[in-house]
């Protein structure tokens, strides 16, 4: 086969949704293999490895994000039903959750406040532009919700999504070290903190480590998302 028909075939395949979808799943399988190989080490985060591999392939083949997303959107779409499904672990853990209503409410209030104020405060001190600041504010909230909040604050939704995913990866990767250093031995506390500070990616990490941690992460993720969607715009206007 000479180079030309091969190139034509590549151009054809790369432009179909099939390519973006296949690339995402193949790279995820590779990343998951690395994650298992390291004994699910937090620094071998599967989201991070997959994103890096996919970007490398897109860059080498000069493929645009729009072309890639035409296929990847089928994976992206499943975020909706996955969030709905978080009601299941929550229902399973409900008897325990009810007994801990006060610790849950208090750590939700403390965690949400610290996440918002510290992100905006540090960014402002180090001279971030107003658009970047408004996009940083909802970084602890899951990407689809962070985008909506950032838009209300005058930030860029796409940039907010990038910050949210970065935060999720950072939280999932660093969580173990921070929580071990603080001697947090309670799996429920570890999961709750990861779900709050690192939303869905922290919740995914929690489920991969411990079932109790996963359920409490899902709870924190959902409560924080609801609270942030309503209160972050108000709090941000008060801060800035």
């Amino acid at each position, binding site marked *: 086969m000479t180079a030309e028909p091969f190139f034509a075939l590549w151009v054809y395949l790369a432009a179909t949704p099939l390519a973006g979808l296949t690339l995402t799943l193949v790279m*995820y399988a590779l990343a998951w293999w690395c994650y298992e190989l390291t004994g699910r080490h937090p620094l071998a985060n599967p989201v991070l490895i997959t994103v890096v591999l996919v970007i490398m392939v897109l860059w080498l083949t000069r493929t645009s994000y729009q072309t890639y997303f035409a296929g990847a959107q089928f994976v992206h779409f499943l975020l909706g039903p996955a969030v709905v499904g978080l009601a*299941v672990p929550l229902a399973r853990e409900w008897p325990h959750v009810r007994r801990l209503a006060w610790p849950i409410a208090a750590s939700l209030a403390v965690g949400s406040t610290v996440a918002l104020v510290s992100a905006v405060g540090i960014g402002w001190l180090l001279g971030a532009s107003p658009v970047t600041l408004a996009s940083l504010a909802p970084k602890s909230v899951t990407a689809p919700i962070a985008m909506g909040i950032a838009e209300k604050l005058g930030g860029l939704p796409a940039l907010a999504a990038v910050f949210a995913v970065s935060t999720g990866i950072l939280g999932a990767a660093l969580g173990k070290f921070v929580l071990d250093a603080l001697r947090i031995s309670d799996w429920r506390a570890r999961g709750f903190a990861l779900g709050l500070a690192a939303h869905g990616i922290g919740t995914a990490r929690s489920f991969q480590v411990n079932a109790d941690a996963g359920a409490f992460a899902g709870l924190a993720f959902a409560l924080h998302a609801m609270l942030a969607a309503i209160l972050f715009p108000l709090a941000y206007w008060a801060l800035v």
Partner: protein
Amino acid sequence: MSPLLAGLTWLLVFQSAGEALVRLTGMPVPGPVVGMMLLFVALQVRKPLPAAISVAADGLAQHLSLLFVPVGVGVMLHVDRVASEWVPIAAALIVSTVLALAATAWTFQRLARRAEAAAATSRS
């Protein structure tokens, strides 16, 4: 219908109900989060937990990581802004995430211990 397919169908039905409710009331919460609340209420009424819904929800939760990849790849669109402001961005993301993790976990563990100790003494 296979349990996985039936479960996924239920999740989509609840998501649609959530989206519809958000549209009708204009509340600032995303549709899937409302769908989650509706499913949670339904699961309180209908016990035990339907196996089909468990299969689909647990399957998606196990690989929640995968679902964030398409948005994460979007970082390639913002390389210029991130590169020009990388110091405040990196500092805010790292420090704030560590602080939020620490503050949340510490508050939770302390108050949960106290609540459980109080419950144990009142029972004895």
